[in-house]
Structures are given as C-alpha cells and as structure tokens.
C-alpha cells in the first residue's frame, strides 16, 4: 500500500487511477418482501443506536426471500433506509425482475462472488464501492446499471413529458431529470424522477422526486390527492396530508430534511 501511495505522488499529474479495493459492508437481508414489516422492525433497531446507521452504505440482500415472493417496493424500501440515514447502494441475490426494478432506482447489482470477496478495510461511501464494481473486469455489464434503466422517452435535455393519463399499475421514471405530466395520475400509479415532478391534473398515485438523493427536488401539482409523496426518500402517506391541502394546487419540498407541503 505504501509503495502504491508513493507511486501516485510521483505520478501526480494523472487525474485519477482505477484500483480494486475491498470493503466490509453491512447487509440488510430480507426474509419478507413486506416493506411495512421491515419498516417496523428497522425503526426499533435504529432507535437503539441512531448514530450507528448514519451515513452507512447498505447492500440489500434478496437471496433469502422465499422463491416467487414477487416484486419488492424498492422505492419505498430505499426511501425508508435513506430516511434512517443509511445509503442503500446495491442489491444482491435478486431474480431478474427484482434486479430490473433495482436498476431502475440506480442501485448496483452486486454479483455473489464479488460481494463475498469483501474482507477487511473501512466502510466507505456508496460511490467508492460502485467504482470498484466498475473495475471488476469480469463483469462489464454491471459498470453502468443506471444507463440501461434509462427510459426511452427521456429527451436529450434531461426531462420527460407525458401527455397521456398515467394509469393504475404504471410506472414512469425520469432518470436524471424532471418529469412533467399533463394528464391525470391514477391511484396505484407511480411517478419517479431524479429531479422535480410537475403534474397538471389530479395526482392520485405516488410521486417520488429526488430519487437519487437530491434534497432540492420538489413536487408541484394542481390537485393533490396523492397516496404518497416523497422527496429524496423523505415521504408522507396520504393520511398524514392535512385535509385542507388535498384537492388544491400545492408545492412539496424539503426544509431542513422535513417534508413540507404548501398551497400554491
């Protein structure tokens, strides 16, 4: 290691170098895909040692889920973990469908052997770990999980415009930009964007802005009837939205990491 450092000082003009490194990371092993059950248990755990989990990168392990347990509500789960200060950055042991869902949220897919090599070393930020994943030459496909998940309708300017109603069961994800909907969003539909979300019509489904952790992201809608709104993982469900804010134009934003809803 010392030799390496010496070298890098000597070749200081190089802007970066790619190296492999190993980290030990906490793993959240799911036995049940019911996110609410996870939320209850996790809440109790975090309460005991809140500092322990702060800024801790976490890998979500899906290998122990009963086979055929179906889709996991990744947006909710990731929001939950972020809400407790953790940095979920990858999954392992999932099936194809779960991996696709995870990739849509820009979670890295960690291969079993790669994860197992982890041995010693300090905990790191999620970003560093993903760099290592990119270096793993035997797995080029994992190097850019986010790009494969990019929706086709995203324009080059980095925003997405949807003019048709978003129906129950549909998901729209504007990766890397804003999402604008000029039609109703039905209950059971899910809007996700790395940037802001604008809805010119009733918003009855879920809206998750700032998916990549952007605390500045906002949600604007003409008629708030949402089931759930979330910004960078800080969420609120409909029963916690005051009645006077329902059915009116609002903006939703984070103020000191507290989700606020204000009339427009």
């Amino acid at each position, binding site marked *: 290691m010392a030799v390496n450092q010496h070298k890098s000082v000597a070749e200081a003009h190089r802007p970066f170098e790619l190296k492999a490194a190993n980290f030990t990371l906490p793993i959240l092993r799911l036995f049940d895909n019911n996110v609410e059950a996870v939320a209850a248990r996790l809440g109790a755990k975090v309460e005991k040692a809140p500092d322990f989990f702060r800024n801790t990168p976490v890998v979500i392990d899906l290998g122990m889920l009963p086979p055929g347990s179906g889709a996991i509500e990744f947006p909710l789960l990731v929001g939950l973990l972020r809400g407790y200060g953790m940095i979920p950055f990858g999954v392992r042991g999932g099936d194809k469908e779960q991996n696709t869902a995870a990739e849509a949220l820009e979670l890295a897919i960690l291969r079993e052997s790669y994860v197992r090599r982890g041995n010693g070393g300090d905990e790191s930020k999620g970003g560093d770990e993903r760099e290592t994943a990119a270096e793993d030459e035997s797995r080029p496909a994992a190097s850019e999980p986010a790009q494969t998940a990019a929706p086709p309708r995203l324009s080059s300017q980095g925003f997405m415009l949807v003019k*048709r109603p*978003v*129906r129950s069961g549909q998901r729209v994800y504007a990766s890397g930009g804003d999402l604008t909907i000029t039609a109703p969003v039905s209950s059971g539909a899910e809007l996700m964007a790395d940037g802001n979300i604008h809805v010119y019509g009733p918003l009855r489904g879920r809206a998750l802005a700032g998916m990549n952790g952007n605390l500045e992201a906002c949600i604007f809608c003409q008629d708030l009837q949402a089931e759930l709104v979330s910004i960078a993982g800080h969420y609120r469900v409909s029963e916690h939205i005051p009645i006077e804010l329902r059915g009116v134009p609002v903006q939703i934003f984070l103020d000191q990491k507290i989700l606020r809803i204000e009339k427009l």
Partner: protein
Amino acid sequence: MARIIVITSGKGGVGKTTTSAALAMGLAQRGKRTVVIDFDVGLRNLDLIMGCERRVVYDFINVINQEANLNQALIRDKRCDHLYVLPASQTRDKDALTKEGVGRVLDELSQSYDYIVCDSPAGIEHGATMAMYYADDAIVVTNPEVSSVRDSDRMLGILSSRSRRAENNDEPIREYLLLTRYNAERVDVGEMLSVEDVQEILSLTLLGVVPESKAVLTASNNGIPVILDRESDAGQSYADMVSRYLGEEVPHRFIHAEKKGFLSRLFRG
C-alpha cells in the same frame, strides 16, 4: 380491413360478455359483417349468451392449432345473417392462445368482415392480454363501484403499453367507457358512484350507460342478446351505445332516476 374491438374490464362479472353479444348483434343488425370471438378459454360463456351452445363443433383453439378451418368453426347466428360467433374451447387452457395463432386468425377474419369483437376474459393474465393485443378500439366495461373503476384503470394502463399498436408506435388504441349495472336511484342517495365520479377518475369518452335491469338476466338465460329486447331499458341503452360507436350523436338516457309521478306513487306504493 376489419376494425378489431376488444371488450375488456379487468374485473369479472361486470358485463363484458353481455356487452360483446349486444355490440356484435347491434353492428350486424346495421348490416355490418361482424364476428364475435370468445377469448375466455376454459370458461366459455359467449355461446350461451348468443344461444348457439348446441351448435359448437370446432372452436377458436382448433382454428389456432389448424385442426379446423375458420368456416368450420364459425357459427352463423340464426337471427341475423351478418353475425358469426367463434366460440372458445371449454377443455383447453389459456396458454393455447398464442400470439402468432391469434394474429393469423384475426388476419384471416379481417379479409371478410367489417368488425371483429373480442370478448376478453376477466383478469390481466394471458387470455386478457391476447384479447387486447391486436385491438384497434377498446370498450372498457365498468360498474359504478370503486374496485371495478380501479381495475378498469389498470386495464387502460396495460392497453396503452402492451398492445400491437403500442409496440409498433402506431396511433394508440381508441378507448371508450361503458358504465353498466348503473342504478340511478342508488346514485341519487349516494350509495353508488355517479357517471361524473367515474368519468373524473378514468377520463375517457363515455360510450353509454346501461342501467341495472332484470331484462339482462332474462335475456342471458334465454340465449338472446339483450339488445334484441327493444322494450327494456338495457336493450335500448345498448342500441344507443352501438349508434354512438358508429359516430352518431345520441343523448344519454337512464342516467337520472325518473321522478315518480303522483299516480304511480299512489298505485305502486
């Protein structure tokens, strides 16, 4: 080229088969060459509603598997020369419907018919997705209650993403709403969603409102499409629906409860 219409809903028991039979009969009565196909493989009902259950020899699956040709499987309606029924198989399962097979049969029918009405099974599984895949128009049958409305909404989402038109980036499927089993009295006292409530959630072109009616059950039991019962409110509203589908402007009826007059109140209690 025929226009392919799928009658769909997501939820079961809302009146898809009744609507398919009524629409097909209504189109045929106006001189359009029409064929109605039962996609509910394993739970076929359309032949009963059409009153041709005793004349089924070959079915849709036989045609798909090329065990019979179309002319052998198509049953001509005895009441209307322009109407043919292609029954489902009662003994196979839905996996027998292949995308290629269904496409081939629909292509062949397109040569000689004006309208092909596809009666979709309930649910969003294989049978339902096959029924809608090739559609040009969709009539979403909905009852005025929340679970039916939500299922219809889900179905509309699938229609806009998993059809041939969506995959080829063609003009999207034209979507219409048909409200069935509508009870204006119960709407008035707030026990049922109103037309406006449903329209607000689904935001679709309203093709018709069919009132809850005893005539529907009677007609089904007798194997007569209810549209032939011109005396009944349900029969009349289906006739209106067919007119609207063909582009005529017909005012909506049966949406509001009739005010009971003094005399009828006196005599009926």
